[in-house]
């Protein structure tokens, strides 16, 4: 199934269903999420549509629910419940105090005074209370107290009413609560049972109040979410119904939908299910119709591929059934990123970060932050970018700007000294810089470092001369390969659309042009890398190429191989011949075809004089159009070949910038702490490392990562895709309740 290599085949289907089952059927289709409704009433304005009242009702309900969600009404209810609870609690405490009072009162019964004041006072206030009582009444009272809970229960036995009044005032001053206690035991017992029952009742009431509060709150919260989503669904359904046609009898609804061919069966089943739910007798009719209109572009994606598809669609949604660049992008995009990022330490940190994003995906989505949402959507892209960066970091032999020496360097310094080579101990004293000469035997072992760049380049001072040349040539090779791949994809497109004329008129001259000039450049690079020659006399490839284009073979020593001159002349002539082929072949053929058609149709149109004239005018207009279009395409392609190849040099530029930034960060931050060997060196190193880590993440990972991401994306969007991608389709947007829920 090549459904991801190009967009799916879509079909236009007419649906007929009864008005009663309309709501249920569309509900089922919405849950399925595979059909896009076409607007059958494009001329009508919003308020002229059939179901406009229902849509307005739904919007009204949405508004109310939104206000509800601010908990205005709920707040009021909550306040009421809370105040009730507080009063109940107060009553409860009072009753408990009375209970305690009565319990201990019996203990004081042997005092014969019958005038007393009984109450409850806070424990810490009791000593002061007692002192003041003594000061006032000089011992003409009996005070007994007990201390059941935090509060003290006290009884003051006195003689005389006046004193009682004064004690009452004193109790008020101390905020002690007084309770009337009956004199005889029987009344007291009654009071006790009374109080106990009241306490039990209050306990029950308090418990019930709590439970009621809980249930109200939870019920409201759960319902709110449910109501909101229901209203949204209803609104979507009524909006969809507005797009359909209702026939004269008001009993039948006609809808036209775009649907993937492979999903027709599931759509049919969903409709039958919907009509059964609504209890209607007739099942909906599904009728596939032929059409000349362009269907929407539908690429079936899963959570891994959706990231890559979205970055392709951001530039332009592909034409219907055009080649989809997304599957190739899944490999080339992280690879081109990694060529520009190339550091295995940073790649490892990026991979671990992406792994954390992947594993904790729901937790990050709950935060509902736009930036974090974007990061989470691209988590698989970041993961692949990190993995590929580890690989290119190992190739560039660069880990936080230091190299690994795993296999042993192929260069050796000792053979440069006597008796092998020219150096002596004095040579070391005199010069600041020394050259290792590979022609001295033993200096270069003859076997290149097995994997990646030799670690000795990391400590060489002419490291950049070597690496620049290497990276530039590598960028050009990768660029030409990427562009050739793009041109080949256009061939696949032509074959799929049975457009074999364009294969001969466009694909072949394009490919020959690119191969003869830039393919030859690649050949020169690879040849110069593989063949052994003296470095002083090796010709510069750039000069060779320029002289080739100018047909300048006068300067000496400008040949890499014997038959270079005739080969180059041939290639340039072929490339130049491709330009008129591209420019004129297709328009001239079209012109001849139109002239033939005009000649054939002339006898039939004698009576329609104006028709013929119009056809002739349109023929002229369209021919000019075609010539101009072809001219633009030719210039764009040919000049674009050169500029796009140079554009790929950004792969070199960004990787150089990254390597240099990384080295500067090490030298300026971490090396300062490493070179301190005295006492507190390790503490300084610990602190400096934290700064190094923070700077690495912010500058090298975030800033450079974004930059390399952007440039890799541009290389795909412009240099790769303008060889084959039209990108002027429209996206398939099905009615899907899942998508609506995810978007809110």
């Amino acid at each position: 199934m090549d459904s991801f290599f190009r967009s799916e085949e879509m079909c236009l289907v007419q649906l007929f269903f009864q008005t009663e089952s309309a709501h249920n059927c569309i509900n089922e289709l919405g849950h399925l999420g595979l059909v896009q409704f076409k607007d059958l009433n494009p001329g009508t304005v919003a308020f002229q549509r059939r179901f406009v009242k229902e849509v307005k009702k739904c919007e009204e309900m949405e508004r109310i629910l939104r206000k509800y969600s601010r908990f205005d009404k709920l707040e009021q209810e909550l306040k009421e419940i809370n105040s009730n609870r507080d009063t109940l609690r107060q009553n409860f405490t009072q009753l408990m105090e009375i209970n305690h009072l009565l319990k201990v009162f019996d203990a004081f019964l042997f005092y014969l005074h019958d005038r007393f004041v009984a109450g409850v006072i806070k424990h810490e206030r009791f000593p002061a209370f007692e002192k003041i009582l003594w000061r006032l009444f000089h011992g003409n009272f009996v005070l007994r107290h007990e201390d059941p809970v935090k509060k003290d229960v006290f009884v003051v036995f006195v003689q005389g009413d006046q004193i009682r009044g004064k004690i009452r005032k004193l109790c008020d001053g101390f905020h002690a609560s007084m309770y009337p206690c009956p004199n005889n035991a029987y009344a007291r017992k009654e009071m006790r049972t009374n109080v106990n029952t009241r306490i039990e009742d209050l306990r029950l009431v308090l418990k019930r109040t709590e439970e009621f509060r809980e249930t109200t709150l939870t019920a409201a919260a759960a319902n709110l979410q449910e109501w909101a989503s229901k209203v949204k669904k209803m609104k979507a359904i009524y909006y969809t119904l507005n797009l359909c046609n209702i026939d004269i009898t008001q009993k039948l609804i006609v809808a036209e939908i775009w649907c993937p061919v492979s999903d027709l069966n599931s759509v049919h089943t969903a409709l039958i299910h919907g009509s059964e739910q609504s209890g209607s007798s007739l099942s909906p009719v599904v009728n596939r119709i032929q059409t000349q209109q362009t269907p929407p572009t539908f690429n079936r994606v899963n959570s891994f591929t959706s990231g890559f598809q979205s970055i392709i669609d951001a530039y332009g949604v592909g034409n219907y059934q055009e080649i989809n660049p997304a599957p190739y992008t899944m490999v080339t995009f992280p690879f081109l990123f990694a060529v520009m990022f190339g550091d295995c330490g940073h790649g490892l940190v990026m991979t671990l970060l992406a792994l954390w994003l992947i594993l904790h995906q729901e937790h990050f989505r709950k935060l509902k932050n736009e930036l974090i949402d974007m990061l989470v959507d691209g988590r698989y892209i970041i993961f692949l970018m990190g993995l590929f960066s580890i690989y290119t970091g190992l190739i560039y032999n660069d880990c936080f700007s230091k190299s690994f020496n795993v296999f042993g360097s192929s260069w050796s310094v000792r053979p440069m000294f006597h008796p092998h080579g020219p150096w002596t101990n004095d040579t070391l004293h005199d010069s600041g810089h020394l050259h290792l000469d590979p022609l001295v035997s033993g200096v270069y072992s003859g076997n290149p470092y097995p994997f990646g760049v030799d670690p000795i380049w990391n400590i060489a001072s002419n490291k950049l001369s070597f690496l620049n040349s290497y990276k530039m040539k590598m960028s050009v090779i990768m660029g030409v390969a990427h562009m050739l791949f793009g041109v080949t994809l256009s061939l696949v497109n032509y074959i799929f659309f049975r457009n074999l004329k364009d294969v001969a008129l466009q694909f072949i001259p394009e490919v020959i042009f690119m191969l003869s000039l830039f393919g030859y450049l690649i050949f020169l690079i690879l040849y110069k890398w593989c063949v052994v020659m003296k470095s002083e006399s090796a010709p510069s490839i750039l000069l060779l190429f320029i002289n080739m284009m100018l047909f300048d073979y006068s300067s000496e020593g400008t040949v890499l191989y014997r038959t270079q001159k005739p080969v180059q002349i041939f290639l340039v002539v072929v490339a130049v011949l491709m330009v008129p082929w591209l420019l004129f072949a297709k328009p001239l053929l079209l012109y001849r075809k139109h002239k033939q058609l005009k000649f054939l149709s002339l006898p039939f149109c004698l009576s329609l004089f104006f028709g013929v004239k119009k056809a002739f005018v349109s023929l002229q207009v369209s021919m000019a159009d075609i010539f101009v279009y072809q001219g633009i395409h030719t210039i764009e392609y040919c000049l674009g070949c050169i500029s796009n190849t140079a554009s790929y040099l950004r792969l070199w530029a960004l990787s150089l910038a990254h390597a240099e930034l990384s080295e500067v960060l090490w030298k300026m931050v971490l090396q300062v702490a490493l070179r301190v060997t005295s006492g507190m060196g390790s503490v300084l190193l610990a602190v400096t490392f934290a700064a190094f880590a923070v700077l690495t993440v912010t500058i090298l990972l975030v800033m450079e990562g974004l930059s390399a991401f952007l440039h890799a994306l541009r290389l795909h969007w412009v240099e790769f895709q303008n060889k084959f991608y039209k990108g002027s389709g429209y996206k398939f947007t099905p009615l899907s309740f899942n998508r609506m829920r995810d978007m809110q």
Partner: protein
Amino acid sequence: MVSCLFCGPKLAACGIVISIWGVIMLAMLGIFFTTHSAVLIDDVPFKEEDMHNDQDPPHNIYKLYNQVGYNCFIAAGIYVLVAALSFCQIKLNHRKEYMVR
């Protein structure tokens, strides 16, 4: 018991991430210094005298290498402590979350 919580959950998480990175990277650096890797020559603070007045070359340079290596190991040890501290803070933060609820 006095509350030992002095940083929020985000700071503690950053702390533990940097500590783990620090432990691994500084330990590896320490190993590479003590095995006298040539690539790290620029990070060793040797002076002209170390090279000239050496009885038994390159012993002086190797001694300097070892010193830097031990510094790295000690710094890695410091980060182990910081990691343990951050981990405790994370645990305390979690407990506080549960208690408030």
